[in-house]
């Protein structure tokens, strides 16, 4: 890939940027989940690798979070945008070269940022916006802006009359995430302090999920399901409802992350009501996708991409039921600050969104490399490791959270809660390690697909060919 960085744009093979992003995202997924497994081991066995500055839990926890969000998830998004946007617009990517540079600078910047964070403990002290502000500026101007430019210009140069649902989301989300970064990190740029800082920290954390991860993940499903099943999207109108309700409802409930902090009461009540309204885009999305599956449900079993995507869509149901109601005062007082929230965050990122991105990467890599997946057996192994590993994690952390909640309400001495949680911490580590193992297998499978997968004949789609191994 490096040889194309200085090549002429027209000499770069179509899909190079997406393939580069695809492999990068898988490698970051392996790194991110490996760190997650390591951290979980420390919670189960506190003297595992101890007395070391670099390997201290407090220096590694945020590296895991940042690696999966900005390495795995966001790079998988970029990979999807690099190949889906042009396909939907019936055109080529605006600039393969910009895409390659985008990916190169992304890898360099993220590696540097995480190394500093890990080895020196450099940290802004603000959850989810942990990167120091020079890194935030780098992310906006060298990562997000080139990505957005490529997406917007490809859509502008489309050879179709209208714009399909997926591309509305891509175009809007790349814009919104830049705004979220610039506004959400303003406490660091301008040294805003106190409640303003606390509120903007969670304004960022909420919106980076609500206006970046959730809509882009959904947009991918809007492409994958119709493309592979051959069914047209059930309803364009419900897609409209989804899009507009994301913009209006998902951008407003930031304060529900601070329900028990001393923020203005009207703000908390408003955020809570808007938080319930997140169910509008959620139900629109899930029903639209599941109805698109009509008559093609056999593919849920037979086709790997559909299996991953539909699993992700099904996980959106418990995710949004939790998300809509756990932030109301009636429930939040019980589960706030407990493992329940950790489970919910993993349901959003490792369940709902990751499963759809994995499908997009599987599908895109086969389409662009013109190679059929090397092994469906390994693909299915990956699926089940992810699903069982994630479920183990989610169930154990949800139970641990309910125990913590009860301990909190009944004012049980904290150490008794720690003792009661211990088995669930071990279960969490086992679940996380399964996900990590599955991802190593995935990396091998994708590598072998590039090297030894059957060549897809011109004019054929990958899902039209039979699996071989």
């Amino acid at each position, binding site marked *: 890939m490096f040889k194309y960085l200085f090549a002429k744009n027209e000499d770069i093979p179509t899909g190079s940027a997406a393939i580069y992003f695809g492999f990068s995202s898988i490698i970051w997924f392996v790194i991110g989940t490996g760190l997650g497994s390591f951290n979980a081991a*420390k*919670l*189960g066995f*506190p*003297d595992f690798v*101890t*007395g070391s*500055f670099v390997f*201290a839990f*407090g*220096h590694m*926890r945020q590296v895991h979070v940042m690696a999966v969000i900005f390495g795995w998830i966001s790079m998988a998004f970029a990979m999807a945008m690099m190949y889906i946007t042009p396909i939907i617009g019936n055109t080529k990517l605006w600039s393969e070269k910009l895409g390659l540079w985008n990916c190169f600078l992304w890898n360099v910047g993220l590696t540097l940022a995480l190394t500093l964070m890990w080895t*020196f*403990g*450099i*940290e*802004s*002290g*603000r*959850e989810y916006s942990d990167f*120091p502000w020079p890194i935030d500026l780098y992310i906006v101007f060298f990562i997000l802006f080139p990505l957005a430019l490529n997406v917007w210009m490809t859509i502008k140069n*489309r050879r179709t*009359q*209208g714009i399909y649902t997926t591309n509305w989301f891509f175009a809007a989300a790349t814009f919104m995430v830049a705004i979220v970064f610039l*506004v959400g990190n303003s*406490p*660091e740029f301008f*040294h*805003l*302090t*106190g*409640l303003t*800082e*606390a*509120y903007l*920290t969670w*304004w960022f954390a909420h919106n980076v999920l609500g206006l970046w991860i959730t809509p882009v993940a959904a947009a991918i499903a809007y492409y994958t399901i119709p493309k592979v099943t051959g069914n047209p999207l059930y309803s364009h109108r419900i897609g409209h409802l989804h899009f*507009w309700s994301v*913009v*209006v409802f998902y*951008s*407003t409930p930031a*304060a529900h992350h*601070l329900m*028990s*902090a*001393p*923020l*203005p009461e*009207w703000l908390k009540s408003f*955020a809570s009501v808007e938080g319930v309204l997140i169910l509008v885009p959620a139900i629109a999305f899930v029903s639209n996708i599941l109805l698109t599956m009509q008559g093609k449900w056999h593919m849920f079993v037979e086709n790997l991409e559909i299996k991953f995507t539909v699993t992700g869509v099904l996980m959106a149901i418990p995710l949004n039921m939790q998300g809509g109601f756990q932030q109301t005062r009636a429930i939040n*007082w019980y589960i706030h*600050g407990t*493992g329940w929230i950790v489970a919910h965050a993993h349901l959003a990122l490792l369940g709902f969104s990751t499963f759809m991105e994995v499908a997009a990467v599987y599908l895109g890599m086969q389409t662009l490399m013109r190679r059929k997946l090397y092994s469906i057996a390994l693909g299915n192994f990956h699926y089940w490791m992810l699903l069982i590993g994630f479920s183990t994690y989610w169930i154990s952390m949800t139970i641990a959270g309910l125990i913590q909640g009860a301990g*909190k309400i009944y*004012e049980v001495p*904290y*150490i008794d809660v*720690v003792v009661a949680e211990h088995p669930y*911490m071990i279960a969490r580590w086992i679940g996380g390690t399964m996900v990590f193992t599955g991802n190593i297998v995935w990396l091998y499978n994708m590598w072998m697909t590039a090297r030894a997968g059957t060549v897809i004949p011109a004019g054929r789609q990958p899902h039209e060919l039979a699996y071989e191994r």
Partner: protein
Amino acid sequence: MAFRQYTVGARMFGLALGSSMMITLFFPSIDIRNVTATESALDRQLQDGWDAGFNLTDPILKGWNKPVKVLMTKDPKTGAALPPGTYAYVYSAGTWFPSGIIHPVILGAGASDLTVQKGRVGEADNKAGAVFMVKHGMFEGQDYAYIEDVTATQGWMPEAVLSSAPEANVSHSGAGKTMFVREGCWWCHTLLPEETQDWQAFGVPPMLGDFNGASPTSFGSDRKAPDLLHVASRNSSREWMLMHFFNPRLVQPHSIMPRFDYLWGDKDASGKDIDFGKWRAEYDEYHEGKRDTPPDVPEPAKNSEIRELLDFMLSLK
């Protein structure tokens, strides 16, 4: 081909997102701006200094550029005895001031007026250094806490204040907050007892004005361990905390907290090298029942990072 331009959609999008920003950013900022800082907020920001997270004066989070909080027993100029519980916040030459000194408007109505008029913080100069205190005064018939630049009002110089107080009365809690952020204590310990419960176990939840000037607030969100906002009111034993930081299992066998022995640095209080390998080997023997007592925890050096973190813990009243 005739393209659809999406002009209406683009405008609607701008309107929708703009309204959302108006409600979630602009309106709350009006309310938050009107909050008056409490005494606790003034104390907190004067001891924390400019910023405890990444910033250009402390890019690798070593606790540089931080003030110290000094318990005063006598006036450094006149030598007169001071009432018990008098604290001064000493900013040596070059140390950056917190937001409340540079932009007193963030202290809110009353507190900011008194801080500027009676406290004379406008005269503080960070090149020369300054000493601050928290005082109480009346503004428009109401009592407010405010910040006073005692270098300007009483001529107390930073060096004089530091040399008038014994070492035991000097707290490095500002640098300790940096350690709290860097070591990720807040990934497990919150600094926010919840409004809906926690009163008996963790103390009073903070109030609206308790945060003016705090940066970062580091509330924490994932509570795997007790809340620490009032920890020193529950347990102020320096010995217990030292053992607990060195190896939490010394005092709480079921704890899952990591060991923070590396914050001791290389040398102990008497300047001798700390032999961590030997300590761990002896601890393992104790753990296996081959020793009756665990090895002693080394006394930390005065300038060690653990001393700063400990000072911060003990400041959380």
